[in-house]
């Protein structure tokens, strides 16, 4: 399957280093000079840099399509006994697709931010951070070794922290940033252990070395507390810990909804399109390891399926427009892991690709709405919106396109990728494939319902926000925001066309493009259907489309036709409604199971004993000691040259005493 590894060359495409390089330079310059010199022109350099990266990534894409794959070290970063790691790039279909996707979206979101962030006191800071993020993400996806992957992994986490807490004077934002960072620690700890294990068993951190020799660990086991555990399972699950944290899968999903405290362009770029999908990318990149372990595959599928379902049940109960979209992101990330969990890595990546466009579009559309509502006490609350269609036509149409795309309406991007996942699950060789498919199809219905709930609540009916806006009318956003919306809308429609399945007359180019890296999942046609495979596939497709249409219809019924139905569930099933509205109580569970006990231990043990006795004394005592010692020693520096000579003489005497002591 991977005979193509010979395809990689080390002496070509070195220009790809500029792809992360340009945003990095822009970020540093903006950070250093932004505050006092560049100020309100801070957007120029980052925008130009990312546009440059975008052009270079297109060139890279062109080269890869024409058969040049590159794998080279730019320079050696760490060279110590037994370990050598470089800053290097592995450019193949998988990474080049990510590069092009990240650069294109990042550029458009940079431009959008010019309008969205205009007048913010931290204007330069915003652009410096978001460029730094772009650099980190590009380093992450183009790495040729695990250490650089880890570097990018942590760097995007840091940028995410900085940007969620961008308005740090707001307590909720600072708290959300902390939450995101701390929750991710749990995942990253496992991830780091996974990388260590890779090094222990392969003696190298380069993808090429590891993946070409991956069969060596197929039958290795480790004894952990008396249990024999397969090494492949252990490595895969530890790496997956990182993915669970970064991609916000159950049980570490709690940070993502809160992360919506950050500016909306950040939600679009980091918490929808790119960073949160890094987990999926990593699993796909390491798929050889995961495929060795059915246990790990089952865990991936289970986490994905559960998160997908759970998030889709919470989304319809929320009123904050960004939170609904955040839960929708959780759910869609679940889809991607479902695909990975049934071995359809290319399908997962395909959904990652299309999702990036339509979900970024949803967030930016929501941002445009929030921009219009920003005088309201809570500009995110959909209960004060409604009827915005007539005030903000461009926002409305682009938002509608994104919603149709996510609902899986045929012809749009979301349809092709979701269908690919569901079909791959149904025909999967893994026993849990059918179950994954069933849940996925049901969630397709929920997805359509909650997505169109947002559309109808925001854009249809009468405008309900006159009072909170004090009679002012909402208005369309400036061109610098709407033009990126329209451009991304093209992606939300057309991104799927590169992967139209054969059955619909397409060539499924995406899967073929990825096949040399990600392989082809085997299709297992159920017994009795050997001759009706096509019919079966069409049937499945029809079923998921029907589920989507049903969801849209139901949303229309409840939120446009008969608004009285809105109170039906809260009235008839108050417990269920409350349970969903409170997000399954995960935050509360964690509060009592983890946060409170930790704080208790921290207060009693650390706070009283360690802090007061050990740290206080060290922190206050040591510098004081240094100062006292320094002050004392200083007295020797009397300025009198005879004293100096005397001290030298003492030194000589000391030397002789030592000499006699030793010999």
């Amino acid at each position: 399957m991977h005979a193509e590894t010979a395809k990689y060359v080390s002496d070509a495409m070195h220009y790809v280093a500029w792809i992360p390089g340009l945003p990095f330079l822009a970020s540093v310059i903006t950070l250093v000079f932004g505050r006092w010199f560049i100020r309100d022109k801070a957007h120029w350099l980052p925008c130009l840099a990312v546009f440059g990266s975008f052009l270079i990534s297109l060139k890279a894409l062109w080269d890869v399509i024409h058969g040049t794959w590159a794998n080279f070290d730019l320079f050696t970063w760490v060279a110590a006994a037994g370990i050598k790691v470089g800053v290097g790039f592995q450019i193949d279909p998988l990474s080049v697709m990510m590069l092009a996707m990240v650069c294109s979206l990042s550029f458009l979101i940079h431009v959008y931010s010019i309008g969205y962030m205009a007048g913010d006191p931290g204007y330069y800071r915003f652009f410096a951070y978001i460029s730094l993020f772009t650099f980190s993400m590009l380093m992450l996806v183009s790495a040729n070794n695990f250490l650089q992957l880890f570097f990018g992994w942590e760097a995007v986490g840091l940028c995410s922290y900085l940007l969620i807490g961008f308005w740090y004077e707001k307590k909720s934002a600072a708290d959300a940033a902390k939450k995101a960072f701390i929750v991710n620690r749990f995942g990253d700890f496992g991830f780091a252990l996974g990388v260590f294990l890779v090094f222990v068993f392969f003696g190298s951190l380069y993808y090429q070395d590891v993946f070409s020799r991956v069969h060596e660990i197929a039958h290795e086991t480790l004894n952990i507390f008396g249990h024999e555990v397969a090494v492949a399972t252990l490595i895969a699950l530890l790496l997956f810990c990182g993915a669970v944290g970064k991609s916000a899968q159950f049980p570490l999903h709690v940070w993502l909804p809160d992360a919506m405290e950050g500016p909306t362009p950040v939600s679009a770029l980091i918490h929808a399109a790119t960073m949160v999908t890094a987990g999926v990318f990593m699993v796909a990149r390491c798929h050889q390891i995961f495929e060795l372990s059915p246990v790990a595959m089952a865990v991936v599928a289970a986490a994905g399926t559960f998160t997908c379902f759970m998030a889709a049940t919470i989304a319809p109960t929320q009123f904050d427009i960004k939170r609904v979209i955040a839960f929708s992101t959780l759910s869609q990330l679940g889809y991607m892991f479902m695909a990975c969990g049934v071995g359809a890595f290319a399908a997962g990546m395909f959904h990652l690709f299309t999702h990036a466009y339509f979900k970024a579009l949803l967030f930016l559309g929501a941002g445009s709405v929030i921009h219009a509502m920003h005088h309201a006490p809570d500009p995110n609350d959909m209960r004060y919106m409604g009827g915005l269609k007539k005030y903000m036509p461009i926002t409305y149409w682009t938002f509608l396109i994104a919603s149709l795309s996510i609902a899986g309406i045929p012809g749009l991007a979301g349809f092709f990728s979701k269908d690919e996942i569901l079909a791959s699950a149904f025909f999967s060789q893994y026993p849990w494939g059918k179950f994954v498919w069933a849940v996925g199809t049901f969630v397709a219905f929920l997805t359509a319902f909650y997505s169109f709930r947002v559309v109808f609540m925001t854009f249809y009916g009468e405008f309900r926000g006159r009072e909170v806006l004090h009679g002012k009318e909402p208005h369309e956003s400036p061109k610098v925001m709407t033009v990126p919306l329209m451009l991304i809308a093209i992606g939300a429609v057309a991104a799927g066309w590169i992967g139209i399945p054969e059955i619909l007359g397409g060539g499924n180019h995406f899967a073929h493009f990825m096949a040399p890296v990600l392989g082809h999942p085997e299709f297992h046609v159920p017994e009795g259907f050997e001759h009706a495979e096509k019919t079966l596939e069409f049937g499945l497709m029809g079923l998921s489309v029907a589920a989507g249409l049903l969801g849209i219809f139901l949303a229309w019924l409840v939120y446009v036709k008969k608004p009285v139905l809105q109170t039906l569930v809260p009235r008839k099933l108050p417990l269920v409604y409350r349970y969903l509205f409170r997000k399954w109580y995960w935050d509360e569970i964690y509060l009592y199971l983890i946060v409170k006990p930790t704080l208790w231990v921290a207060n009693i043990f650390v706070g009283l004993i360690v802090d007061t006795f050990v740290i206080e004394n060290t922190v206050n005592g040591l510098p004081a000691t240094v100062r006292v010692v320094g002050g004392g020693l200083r007295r020797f520096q009397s300025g009198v040259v005879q004293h100096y000579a005397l001290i030298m003489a003492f030194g000589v005497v000391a030397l002789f005493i030592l000499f006699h002591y030793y010999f």
Partner: protein
Amino acid sequence: MPFSLLNLKALMPEIFLVIVASVMVLLDRAVREKAFFFWMALVGTVVAWLLARESLDLHFGASYLSDHYGFFFKTIFLLVLFLTILISPGYAKREGFHFGEYYGLLFFAVCGMMLMASGTDLLVIYLGLELMSLSIYVLVAMAAGDPRSIEGSLKYFLLGSLASAFLVMGLAVLYGKTGKIVLSELAGWLTSDKAVLTGILFFIVAFGFKVAMVPFHMWAPDAYEGAPTPVTAFMSVAAKAAGFAALGRIFLLAFYPAYAYWVKLLIPFAVLTMFVGNILAVVQTNIKRMLAYSSVAHAGYILLGIVSGTKEGLSASMLYLLIYAFMNIGAFATVVLMQREGRVGESIFDYQGLAKLYPVPAFLMLLFMFSLTGIPPTAGFIGKFYLFRSVVHAGYPIIAILAVLASVIAAYPYLRIVMLMYMREPEREIKLAPSPYIWLALGLSALGVITIGIYPGSLLTSVLASVF
């Protein structure tokens, strides 16, 4: 040694330096054009380096060998000389230096250093050391209008003479017992004979003085503070590097058979140097004194490479000296930039709020301070990392731990400057004394600090290859 091996070509760079230096001193009164000396010195430096490269692998009898080890150090000296020349003109003009004398003395000093780095017998090394020292004594006293300059110079001279006396004493003992002065021949004669080992003690004292090892460092703060700032920059790096060049060759070549003896004597002094230097740097408020103590502490770190006694250790010391050249000259260049008149720019409180008024110099200073502290991704981190690693590999993990602790203390004085620059509002009016040459020097230093910090790989290999 047959005289047919006599080859003056090996000495071309030194001869060239002496000629240029003499011409400059002679023309001092005749040529009024200051720029003439400036450009002559810059070009002379570059030519000297080219000649040094040309003379590689040649030797002059058994007394002088132009090997890669020597060439590496010559590169450091000439690099430091080049940067020093760049930061000098404004300062020298203001203080009314005679340009010809000033550059001429710098050239003489570098010539002495080159003899120390490439000398392979004790006498040549001693002569080089004296040439260097005498030139620097005068350079320290260059700011004749400032009594501290004269005072520093006199102290340095008196104590330096004492140190030289110890060196000659050591030389006499060794020669008296073995009858040899050529380093490679001396190695064969070293026995566990106590008299011979005593000779080594004197060498520790003399070179300890030159590199500012505690307790032979007392001259350093006074001389550093009193000397004109460009001279301080020059001597803090180049003279130290020269001391280590000779120390490395003598101890790891001639005295290597007695390694087990002298290392035990050197260790306590190296550790003491790191701690005393850093602790005293904490209480300074004059930036030149602070950097003087920091230079003492750095001598302690660099000694660790000698303590390791391995190729790896020596190459780590060499690499650190190169890195130290970039970061320390950079820091002093920023000080020169701040010194518009008199004592301004010497108190650390003059740096308050610098970032707000002049973000570029502040950022560069931050870079150099981070590097001196040893924070990645600056070169200082790489340098410390390889030094400490070599000590661990040589079997002294405890010393590595002590060194790390000492560098924790060091973070305070350096980061205090950064804190003052970035977190305080400016209180006094700050005016810079800029010139394109200082910017060039700052740029080159910053480039060195960053490039080596991120990309140490190939440099490390080449340093390792140039150990004798």
